[in-house]
């Protein structure tokens, strides 16, 4: 039986990036604006759960991931790990225990690997910096183990290679191996396959899904691809302009979206077969507003085909619309 206690909890998490005001603004004491990248998010992850975070570019997905990985400091709200508030913990030594348990996988595997380090160095780095090994033999053992469980075998073949000697898929596996080496309990995967060729995406996803079944690892899977999210996640959270507009089980979100944005996202995703017909390709109008100028009221209203007066005035709260299914839309109230 799986342990299903909360491992991570975000409480009205908020990340605002200050906009560097102009000289004259600053001189006149005018408040400079802020990019509201993440604007109050409540989200929880239980052990062994896969939650997908979906949204279009600029919606704040990466920022959420970075906050959880302690790469960005929230400007408001709380980050609770196993019930403990770790929002304000900083410094590499203070964070060591946390880093031991939470790891992150990055979108661009090539960028995430230092081109001048060997695979051995890369995978061994967390073990050394988190002081998880005592000697070289142990280190080699753990590195080998990690590489093998990321599907790179025989591991010895990879030790002395450099990232540029690997294919894209192998690189992404090295990144995963690096995260696995410390045996974390939660992995944040930020678009781990979007840079990869279609033909190898499945391999990587397979590795991630296996982790959950083998080690009961929780996974926050960040993607902009709804079908992909549906195929891997237990729950899907839909992010729009820094706010969660809808969250629910993967099937609910995919087949029974209760927020117009989720519906638009689903419709915009090209699909093979079935109802595939160019004529039906429906696109949302307009561009994503900048996170620096979030519209008043419901932040989706300027692009929403169903928007009415209230949407322009008040921001809809998130309400339960089904079992474990929340939506922030006036229509769903």
């Amino acid at each position, binding site marked *: 039986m799986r342990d299903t206690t909360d491992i991570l909890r975000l409480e009205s998490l908020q990340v605002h990036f200050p906009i560097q005001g102009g000289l004259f603004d600053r001189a006149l004491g005018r408040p400079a604006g802020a990019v509201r990248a993440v604007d109050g998010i409540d989200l929880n992850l239980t052990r062994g759960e896969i939650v997908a975070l979906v949204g*279009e*570019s600029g919606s704040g997905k990466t920022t959420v991931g970075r906050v959880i990985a302690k790469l960005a400091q929230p400007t408001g709200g709380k980050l609770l790990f196993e019930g403990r508030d770790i929002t304000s913990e900083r410094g590499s030594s203070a964070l060591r225990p946390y880093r031991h348990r939470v790891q992150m996988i990055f979108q661009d595997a090539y960028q995430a690997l230092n081109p001048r380090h060997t695979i051995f160095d890369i995978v061994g780095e967390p073990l050394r910096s988190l002081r998880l090994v005592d000697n070289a033999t142990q280190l080699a053992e753990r590195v080998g183990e990690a590489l093998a469980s990321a599907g790179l075998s025989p591991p010895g073949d990879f030790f002395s290679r450099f990232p540029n000697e690997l*294919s*894209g*898929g*192998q690189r992404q596996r090295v990144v995963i191996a690096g995260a696995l080496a410390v045996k974390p309990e939660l992995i944040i995967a930020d678009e781990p396959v979007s840079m990869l*060729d*279609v*033909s*190898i*995406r*499945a*391999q990587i*996803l*397979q590795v991630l*899904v296996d982790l959950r079944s083998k080690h009961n690892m929780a996974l926050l899977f960040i993607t*902009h*691809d*709804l*079908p*992909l999210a*549906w*195929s891997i996640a237990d729950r899907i959270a839909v992010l729009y302009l820094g706010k969660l507009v809808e969250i629910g089980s993967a099937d609910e979100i*995919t*087949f029974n979206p209760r927020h117009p944005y989720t519906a*638009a*996202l689903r*419709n*915009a*995703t*090209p*699909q*093979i*077969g*079935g*109802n*595939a017909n*160019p004529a039906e*390709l*429906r*696109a*949302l109008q307009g*561009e*994503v507003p900048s996170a620096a100028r979030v519209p008043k009221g419901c932040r989706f209203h300027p692009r929403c085909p169903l928007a009415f007066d209230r949407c322009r005035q008040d921001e809809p709260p998130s309400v339960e619309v089904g079992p474990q299914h929340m939506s922030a839309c006036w229509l769903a109230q």
Partner: protein
Amino acid sequence: MINTSKRSAALLEVDGLSVTYGLMGASSRAIENVSFALGAGEAVGLVGESGSGKTTTAMAIAGLLSPNARVSSGEVRYRGNVLPIDDDAAMRPHRWSETSVVFQGAMNALNPVHRIITQIAEPCMLKLGMPRGEASARARELLELVGIPADRGTAYPHELSGGMRQRVMIAMALACRPSIVIGDEPTTALDVITQAQILKLLGKLRSQLRLALILITHDLSVVAEACDRVLIMYSGRIVEEGTVAEIFAQPKHPYTRLLIDSIPNPANGKKMIRPIPGDPPNLMNRPSSGCAFHPRCPSVMAVCPTEVPSIDQFGQERVACHLYRSSQEDRGASHA
């Protein structure tokens, strides 16, 4: 759907095209024996993974091969005339007036120091000899056509969002009223919603202007939405060709089949995803003989590692796989 190549006389015919790149003394074959035809107003998708030769094929058609590329065999015919794709100067009049290209990274493909309206108007002035005023009027028209308010024309590329930049590229591509537009991964860098907008725009323009479209992508589902026909490329060769409906309903080549299988599809409840084993081909692990896909192929046969399958007509489709040779021969025999 009817085979479009029968519906209209071929606008463009690619015949047995092979291109090699010279790199530091060595030469590598990027595409081999690529043949296909494109009718006026038709949209063809060119699908394959990275390095499979999609861009090389497109650039060869547009006569834009880089200086170290050499056309080792084959030819490209436009409206029945052979294009001098090897000759930079001779290709010049053809470029943009007949074939224009929408590149992937519009940020880099637009000159950062010129206003977008200038860049759109430039081919009108230089190729069509329009006076400046007329050219910029046309540029404004084109901007409106792709859904950008004309007064944004004075903006510089970096001031626009990715989707808008891609639209500017499209507007620029239409400047000289070409009959073929090649889109080299025009939506890959964009997110789903913007991608949908761009694809919709391309579809609209295609029907309005009777443009033939070659859409290069590695995403099968994009092709499914936007094209009539699909060409699947693998390691420099076309392995399968057919209409969208046929290919997705009944993929023939094992690679195509695996490719479609690896895409999750909520529409038919297909959740997981069968990985294609092995690594995509690259210069290092490309098999030296036989079918390039054989190391990863689940239905590999004895003949596969030794013999390159020829691409044969198979019903409405063409496929290059030993699996289908016998049946093709059967068919051929029955025909005879």
